[in-house]
């Protein structure tokens, strides 16, 4: 049953990164658009994301609940040492959520729209950066778990783990990934005359993701981050990344031809491969601290708790997944093959 729980954890994480990532990315694409394109993007984003964005963001709550119920000590390390970036992520999630709804539901469309727009765009950009920094902090090896909390300075304990070069680059990489996902999604959803905007954006985003990914690797190499050596030593992780890298060529061609669905499928597969590679490289030691690693399996709650959690997840999954599928399908968001 432990593996059922881990499976749901991984699935939730993948879905959160892809679905909420595309959602964050929509705001980033809007931020980096010309004034005229901003209004077009705003409309398209609303039409595409409106029905589903709420559901997309619930995956993070599922991740959270699985962690605190199933892996309490693992979760404990996160909330204790990454308190600050997590709080900043929450601030961002709150502001962009309300801004998205305010700008659509405000009864009068007047100057206040400008405020909502900027709130939405900025928080869409900043939130994934902090989220990425949180992920980065888990792998950066800067987290110190002291015996007595007083023995370390505030900076070393609560700031250094996430405020370092590696984490910052992971944050920027994640934001670029979000923009990439969103612009690809928008190719498929935009009208014919608007499509070239997103084709151009997708190309820029693809290049940015590659550059950011490269910078993360360079940085890990220069500063001897342990995550990199674990990554390089793991043949599965390397194979997955290699496949994902090779997929860039058909992807760029598909973007050039403005293919709606093939592009989306390639992108999805690529992102999933990269994430799985990162997970495999590190599994089961999903947090790297300054002197050791934390094995998520060893922090698991007692069997009885895991069993009940696993059953709840299966039952919940049986209710939610068909509902979610139906939601996406009703609003025509699921297309796998080109017509």
């Amino acid at each position, binding site marked *: 049953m432990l593996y059922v729980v881990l499976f749901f954890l991984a699935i939730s994480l993948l879905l959160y990164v892809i679905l909420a990532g595309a959602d964050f990315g929509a705001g980033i694409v809007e931020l980096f658009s010309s004034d005229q394109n901003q209004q077009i993007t705003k409309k398209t984003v609303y039409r595409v994301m409106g029905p589903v964005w709420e559901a997309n963001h619930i995956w993070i709550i599922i991740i959270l609940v699985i962690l605190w119920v199933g892996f309490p000590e693992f979760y404990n390390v996160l909330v*204790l040492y990454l*308190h600050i970036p997590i709080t900043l992520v929450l601030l961002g999630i709150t502001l962009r959520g309300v801004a998205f709804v305010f700008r659509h539901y405000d009864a009068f469309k007047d100057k206040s729209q400008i405020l909502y727009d900027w709130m939405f765009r900025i928080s869409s950009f900043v939130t994934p950066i902090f989220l990425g920094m949180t992920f980065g902090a888990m792998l950066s090896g800067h987290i110190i778990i002291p015996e007595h909390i007083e023995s370390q300075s505030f900076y070393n304990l609560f700031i250094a783990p996430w405020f370092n070069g590696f984490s910052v680059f992971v944050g920027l990489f994640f934001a670029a990934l979000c923009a990439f996902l969103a612009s690809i999604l928008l190719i498929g959803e935009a009208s014919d005359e608007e499509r070239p905007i997103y084709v151009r954006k997708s190309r820029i985003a693809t290049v940015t993701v590659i550059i950011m990914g490269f910078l993360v690797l360079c940085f890990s190499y220069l500063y001897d981050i342990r995550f990199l050596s674990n990554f390089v030593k793991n043949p599965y992780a390397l194979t997955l990344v290699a496949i994902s890298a090779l997929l860039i060529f058909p992807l760029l061609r598909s973007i050039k031809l403005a293919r709606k669905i093939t592009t989306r499928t390639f992108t999805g597969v690529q992102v999933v491969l990269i994430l799985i590679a990162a997970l495999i490289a590190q599994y089961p030691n999903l947090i790297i601290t300054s002197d050791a690693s934390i094995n998520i399996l060893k922090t698991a709650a007692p069997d009885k708790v895991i069993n009940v959690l696993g059953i709840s997840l299966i039952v919940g999954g049986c209710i939610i997944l068909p509902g979610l599928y139906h939601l996406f399908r009703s609003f025509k968001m699921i297309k796998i093959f080109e017509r």
Partner: protein
Amino acid sequence: MDNLDAARLQMAFTLIFHIVFACIGMVMPFFMVVAHKKWLNTKNPIYLTLTKSWQKGVAIFFVTGAVSGTALSFELGLLWPEFMKHAGPIIGMPFSLEGAAFFVEAIALGFYLYGWNRLPKKFHWFTGIIVGIAGVASGILVVSANGWMNAPSGFDYVNGEFLNIDPIKALFNPGWFTQALHMTLAAFTATGFAVAGVHAFQVYKKKHKELHMKAFKIALTFGALAAILQPISGDISAKDIAKRQPVKLAAMEAHYHTQKGAPLYIGGIVDNENQTVSYKIEIPKALSFLAFGDFDAEVKGLNDFPEDVRPKNIALVHYAFQIMVGIGSLLLIVGLLFFISFKKQIWWQKKWFWILFAVLAPTGFIALEAGWIVTEVGRQPWIIHNIMKTKDAVTPMPGMVYSFYMYIVLYTVLTVAVTWLMTRQIKFLNNSKTV
């Protein structure tokens, strides 16, 4: 302000904010589907306009409730890591089910808000019902987790360790039913009176009278019914508290000295140092009767509990309790008046009738917040009753006071923003010619 106080205030502030939005987000869908059903049945366009305006309200409140709820679920761990480390696995059941219910709610809301003219009519209406039911279910589940903090069960506590964890027993802890019943009724009362009050004010101002009167009737029918049922649930809760948390009961009544045939104090000013309550109305033997169903039963006073297991702020608990019960009784009477008004429709022509309900709009929520202050402050110094103290659960990270300030600013701004948006909704509705 020390770290513990800052963390407690932040938690309190976030909860006070979140509860309002969560309640409206879970109760208003029911008003919405009633109006929607009336539109489907009567084809009276007023009902369609009403449904669509309420739907905007639901969307704004739901999202604000959802994001503040997301923040809250993280804050549990961020502020109380030691609590979550031990309690997380035990109360995982209500939280994982709540996650599922919340997910269902979000999916259903996606269908509902965007399904106009795209989904089959009946299915579309039905998704609105699912929004409401899933909302109430998640409310009940979260309250069950709070019930566990008051009535911990489903584990053995041996030498500071939590052994033999039984998550299902923890879900159905002795506190869950009384608390969930009380809170669900309170949510319907508070939201019903708040929404009805807003529309009553519009009727008073003679703006789109027909629409606002229809809205008023739908909202208040729910609110008044819940207010009338609430005393029954209150009685169950009081007897339950008397049995399980006698010290909380003593704090609620500022009852210092153990006594047989204890009197009930209404109002009064608490002097904690001298252990007296002045300017109160005293009803002889009533506390014994309300707590144990026996006029001569013994009610333990605060003095019979060691100092370190008593809530510090007795006065706050007592005042909050008085406010809750006072407003509850008032809304019960006014709720009955509302049902009588269907026989005496002449009242609907009178200004006082509409002013009365407009004035009462915020009271339900004041009572609801006061009730939570009673149960949360009354539980102190424990975070898990008789097991773990709040001060042992707080995060060791210094500087929580800054985080507290940040949340105060954030939620104050959001409260102002949402209120402003609502007034704009009403202004827009009143200016529209379609009604």
